[in-house]
């Protein structure tokens, strides 16, 4: 590019008179601009939708294959069981989807640190609570909308696969609508939990590792617990608590759907709360 050695004669601008003060509204618009102006947002959201729907569809296909192996005399009982579990079968991709949204949640805040943008952001909007709240609201809203779309799409694709052998449910079946909406809520809260961890750790790899540990590894490890421990601990594992809303968790050892989800929300609230306290207190 060509450079002009002498700057323009006047740099003075005619700005409208300032009224009030920079606040939440402007911060929201800014955060929306930020999140929609980088490619990683679109890639991760696309990955979320494709992976979650794809795994759900494959899992449904597995169910159908399995059903065709069942001897005719047992098919009625098998069909009843498959229909009861049809929602959770089609939503199975959420197990991986939660990790994708966790990556985006962490990146939303940690990319500000890895690029150094945080210093620029805070030097134009130094009211940190407002700044971080706006970021959390914008990310949370996007995660919720995309999460709901993903969950409903997974359900309908999965049912289409299951319907080839009449193993599908409809949204009118008991608990199905709750599970499908719950899938979207679950994704949004996973993202926010990871966002909170990102604000605490300020490091992309660290935050993603912590999220995956909390959401995924704890769940796997809980499988190794001795039975008499498991009945007390299992339901508190984040994935089990959060999954209660969309999974058909049999057994009295688990939380009911909404209680489990509330526990999961509480975990996210703790991470977000810690993130807010540290974000306001620490040097940027």
């Amino acid at each position, binding site marked *: 590019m060509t450079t002009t050695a002498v700057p323009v004669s006047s740099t003075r601008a005619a700005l409208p008179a300032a009224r009030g003060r920079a606040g939440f509204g*402007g911060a929201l618009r800014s955060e929306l601009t930020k999140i929609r102006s980088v490619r990683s947002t679109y890639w991760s959201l696309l990955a979320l939708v494709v992976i979650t729907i794809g795994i759900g569809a494959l899992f449904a296909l597995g169910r159908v294959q399995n059903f065709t192996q069942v001897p005719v005399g047992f098919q009625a009982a098998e069909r009843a069981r498959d229909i009861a579990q049809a929602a959770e079968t089609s939503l199975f991709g959420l197990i991986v989807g939660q990790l994708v949204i966790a990556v985006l949640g962490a990146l939303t805040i940690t990319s500000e640190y890895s690029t150094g943008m945080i210093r620029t952001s805070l030097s134009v909007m130094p009211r940190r609570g407002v700044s971080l709240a706006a970021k959390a609201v914008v990310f949370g809203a996007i995660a919720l909308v995309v999460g709901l779309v993903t969950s409903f799409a997974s359900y309908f694709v999965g049912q289409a696969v299951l319907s080839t052998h009449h193993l599908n449910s409809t949204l009118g079946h008991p608990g199905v609508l709750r599970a499908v909406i719950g899938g979207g809520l679950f994704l949004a809260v996973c993202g926010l939990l990871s966002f909170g961890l990102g604000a605490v750790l300020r490091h992309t790899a660290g935050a993603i590792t912590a999220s995956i540990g909390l959401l995924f590894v704890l769940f796997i490890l809980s499988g190794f617990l001795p039975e008499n421990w498991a009945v007390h601990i299992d339901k508190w594992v984040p994935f089990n608590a959060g999954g209660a809303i969309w999974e058909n968790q049999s057994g009295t050892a688990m939380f009911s759907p909404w209680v489990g989800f509330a526990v999961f929300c509480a975990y996210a609230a703790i991470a977000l709360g810690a993130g807010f306290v540290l974000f306001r207190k620490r040097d940027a």
Partner: protein
Amino acid sequence: MIEARGLTKRYGDTLAVDDLSFAVEPGKITGFLGPNGAGKTTTMRLILGLDHPTSGAVTVNGKAFAGLAYPMREVGALLDAKAVHGGRSAHNHLLCLAETNNLPRRRVDEVLALVGLTEVARKRSKGFSLGMGQRLGIAGALLGDPGILMFDEPVNGLDPEGILWIRNLMKALAAEGRTIFVSSHLMSEMENTADHLLVIGRGRLIADCTVPEFIAANSRQSVRVRTPQPAALSRVVAAAGGTVHEDGDGLMVVHGLGVSQVGDLAFDNSVRLHELAPAQASLEQAFMELTASSVQFHAGVPTERELQPANAGEVA
């Protein structure tokens, strides 16, 4: 107006900023000088509230920075031109900054034109050269048309054309009545642009004065003399209380006496002079003398930088 009172910042065992009190006066270019690691950037971070002071306080127009109604309308800062998300276009980067302070969207295009980045407005900033990145940072600082502008080492790493551009820009901004607070370790840069100087070393304020005052107060007066009778001149100068430094080839530098005193002494004592001139002390020399004791990272062997004027390799 930026005012610091007893500003102190400690990182662990390191005292980065040590009891700084100063005022950056409105409508002037104030140069903030110090060797690398002296605490210049930390002070600027404290002004912007990026770091919290260990003790003391700093205000901008009488308020803490975070308390300003529209921070961008009062202070525009460029601390680190690389502090942007490289995946975002120049236009979107500026837009997300402008939106926080409810600035009109058209302002983004205005500042892009002002710094000459209109053509690359839609390009992602990760492909920008150092100079273009610097312009983007300056565009961001100008968005709110602020009365105070703060630049941390703005010419670092720029080519001569870029340095000239920044220098002219700062002068133009100051001519419009804005307050400019600019840090540098390049003395010559300050000599060319600054009205007032704040000099720090190891986090402490060691001078707060105008450029001529700084040179006058911190460099020993010296006179350059060329004579075919060096021994005779040395004798009379020493007798009059001056000191002589022989540079060989008949050239001598006299400290402690003025030009007229040296001339009169030579005439009175019949010493022939071939040359008599005041030696100009530069800001560079004054600064080196003043901060010699406060350089934080002294090399065991003097580096080239210490032997030469600090910016020998730079184009001033």
